[in-house]
């Protein structure tokens, strides 16, 4: 049998070629050195469409090794369709172990939630970010937002919070609440609920953020000060779940999610 | 008694560029002095240069040459011709007041506020200023209905009283007043004359332009008679 060598090339370990991995790693280093600063990167093409987690994938594939154990969360669940898809993809291209258990995992890629378990300094959390620029809501021009970050000109951001408070009596941002990293940059922590934001502050683990469509990478190194934006008299507060309990386990101290059952309740 | 004002070789010539550089000599080599606490009357025919002289001292007109040495509380002896604008503004705010022949006001300000504005600018206490202003225009006999009306609609005599009031209320160190008693009846004339004499008692020096013999006799310690921009004679009362 004549072997078809032309079309039978196998992929590089972790799908991305080594030169691109090198570039992403370099950008990751830069991101870790400047907490909260968005570093532009090459965002190579993936067999997954933009908007489905390519940024997070880029970061994960650049840092993953044979001995790592991967946990994948999407829409806050390990069993969601996209989570399964991404998990299989990474397993196929790297051969590394996968798990649903937070404590076993070394790399956790996530969208929409930070794990309820506290992460250790042996773990890395990778976020999929739809919109890395927190100022996009107030300023549509990229060159202007870059200047605003460079000069710490964040008055417009504060103003949106003020206006929300004035209009509706409370700051309404439920997810992706803007935070101030290391007293210098305002950062979008990706659409995690307010409940998870305090976990970013002074953590043991490393947080990496990848936005594939927007081509930006940023990071929060361990033990970094991360504070949600708040006024002197209108403070940030997390959701209050004191009056509800989990329907299946009775547990109360985690973020409560509503799920619709087959009978519509 | 110190000399408060010394005018030396003052010359003022108007150069009208839009009339093909027509030149009008208004003041030619004017020299005189004034002592502190003196009231000096400027007399002369119309067009002899009285108002021009007064306006040149106040710096509304720029002299072409000469000196106007004024003894100021803030700066000592200062030449008003060449002084910095900032200093002139300070002097106008604190020491020198000019009362023009006709009342020129913004037509939206009430009579009391016109008079009160002078001291409000200095001390910013509007309520107190209005009280003092009210007292003053009461003394001058302005009818109560007019106190909150707009002076631009008043009669000549009423306007004149507002004009004088806002100059006197400032209690300046040096008062320049142009025709204070024109269009006033005898009774009001006496009131105005008395107010100026009260100022003199408190140390104000006054340079006064008037056509009225009565006012001149009652007020001036010295008279300067101008003709064609030059001093004809100085008469001591």
């Amino acid at each position, binding site marked *: 049998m004549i072997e078809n060598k032309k079309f039978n090339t196998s992929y590089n370990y972790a799908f991305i070629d080594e030169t691109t991995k090198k570039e992403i790693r370099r950008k990751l280093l830069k991101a870790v050195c400047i907490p909260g600063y968005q570093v532009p990167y090459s965002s190579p093409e993936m067999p997954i469409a933009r908007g489905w987690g390519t940024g997070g994938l880029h970061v994960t594939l650049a840092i993953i090794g044979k001995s790592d154990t991967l946990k994948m969360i999407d829409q806050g669940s390990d069993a969601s369709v996209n989570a399964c898809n991404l998990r299989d993809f990474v397993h196929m291209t790297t051969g590394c172990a996968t798990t649903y258990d937070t404590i076993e995992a070394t790399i956790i890629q996530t969208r929409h939630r930070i794990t309820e378990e506290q992460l250790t300094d042996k773990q890395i959390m990778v976020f999929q970010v739809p919109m890395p620029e927190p100022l996009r809501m107030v300023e549509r021009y990229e060159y202007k937002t870059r200047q605003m970050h460079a000069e710490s000109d964040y008055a417009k951001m504060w103003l949106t919070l003020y*206006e929300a408070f*004035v209009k509706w009596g409370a700051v309404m941002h439920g997810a992706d609440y803007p935070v101030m990293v290391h007293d210098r940059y305002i950062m979008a922590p990706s659409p995690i609920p307010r409940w998870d934001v305090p976990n970013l502050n002074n953590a043991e683990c490393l947080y990496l953020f990848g936005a594939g469509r927007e081509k930006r990478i940023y990071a929060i190194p361990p033990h970094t000060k991360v504070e949600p934006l708040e006024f002197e008299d209108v403070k940030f507060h997390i959701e209050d779940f004191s009056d509800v309990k989990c329907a299946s386990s009775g547990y109360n101290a985690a973020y409560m999610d509503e799920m619709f059952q087959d009978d519509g309740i | 008694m110190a000399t408060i004002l010394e005018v030396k070789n003052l010359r003022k010539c108007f150069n009208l560029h*839009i009339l093909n550089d027509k030149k009008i000599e208004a003041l030619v080599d004017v020299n005189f002095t004034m002592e502190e606490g003196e009231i000096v009357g400027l007399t002369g025919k119309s067009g002899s240069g009285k108002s021009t002289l007064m306006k040149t001292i106040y710096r509304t007109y720029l002299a072409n040459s000469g000196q106007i040495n004024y003894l100021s509380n803030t700066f000592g002896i200062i030449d008003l011709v060449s002084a910095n604008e*900032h200093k002139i503004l300070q002097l106008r705010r604190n020491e020198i007041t000019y009362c023009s022949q006709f009342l020129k006001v913004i037509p939206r300000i009430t009579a009391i506020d016109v008079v009160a504005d002078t001291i*409000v600018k200095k001390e910013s206490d509007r309520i107190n200023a209005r009280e003092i202003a009210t007292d003053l225009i009461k003394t001058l006999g302005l009818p109560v209905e007019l106190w909150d009306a707009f002076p631009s609609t008043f009669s000549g005599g009423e306007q004149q009283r507002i004009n004088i009031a806002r100059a006197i209320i400032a209690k300046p160190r040096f008062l320049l007043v142009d025709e204070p008693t024109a269009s006033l009846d005898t009774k009001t004339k006496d009131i105005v004359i008395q107010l100026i004499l009260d100022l003199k008692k408190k140390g104000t020096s006054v340079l006064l332009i008037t056509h009225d013999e009565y006012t001149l006799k009652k007020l001036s310690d010295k008279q300067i008679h101008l003709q064609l921009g030059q001093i004809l004679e100085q008469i001591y009362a």
Partner: protein
Amino acid sequence: MLYNENNTTNDWVLKVENLTKIYGNYTENTIANTGPDKGTNICPETGSIVACAEISFELYPGEVLGIVGESGSGKSTIVKQLFFDMDVTMGSAFIRPFLNGTVNIFEESNQKKRYMRNHLMGMVYQNPRDGLNFSFSSGGNIAEKLLMADLFHVGKIRERASDLLNKTEVPVTRMDDLPAYFSGGMQQRVQIAKAIANNPPLLFLDEVTSGLDVSVQARVLDLIRGLQHELGIAMIVVSHDLSVIRMLTDRTLVLKHGRIVERGLTDQILQDPQHEYSQLLVSSLL
């Protein structure tokens, strides 16, 4: 009367020296080839436009300086450069509250310029769209200025915004309305409230009443006059209308073809103008 270095005192709040703005390439002859005596702003050699040149003056605390001239004389250019809206070609400026007036503000970093803009200056534009953000409420616009001046307390911000709107005679009930729903005069008043929100020592007013109806104009000018008396802010008022200048200012600069042709006390400029152009302007008063 020529500008004399020795004639100045030292307690100015703003000092401008040789401020110049040229659009296009220029040589050492460009400034000499333009100006009021040459009758043009455009250099015949290089075709560049000299918007303003050799502008030097001082502003003292609590005083109001008027800048008057016709369209194209360079008056707005001066205040735009001082407010950092426009780059400077040549020249320097010093602000007393910033490092005691020892550094040229045009050579400072963007960060420092932003600090000066937010804490030491206020600007009111002719068009409210330049000074206000129409996607935020009017109270929010004032809040923006306060946030830029580092006030992060919502209660205090609202109190100060109400206070300012009261001062500028805008109904406080409309504090949360968008400026698009206000009349032109009210928009201007919101702009003024925003400009003085941080109690700046310097305020620039660029043709603030051109385009308003006469009665509205009167009201806005009266407001500015009252605020000036009450707060003692040093102001630069730019206008082509001599009656605005007469009402508001203590001193005036007359500009033609980008140069100062006459400077002096406002009443002197109005009653005894020396320069040919000033005489023309004054005689054109309606």
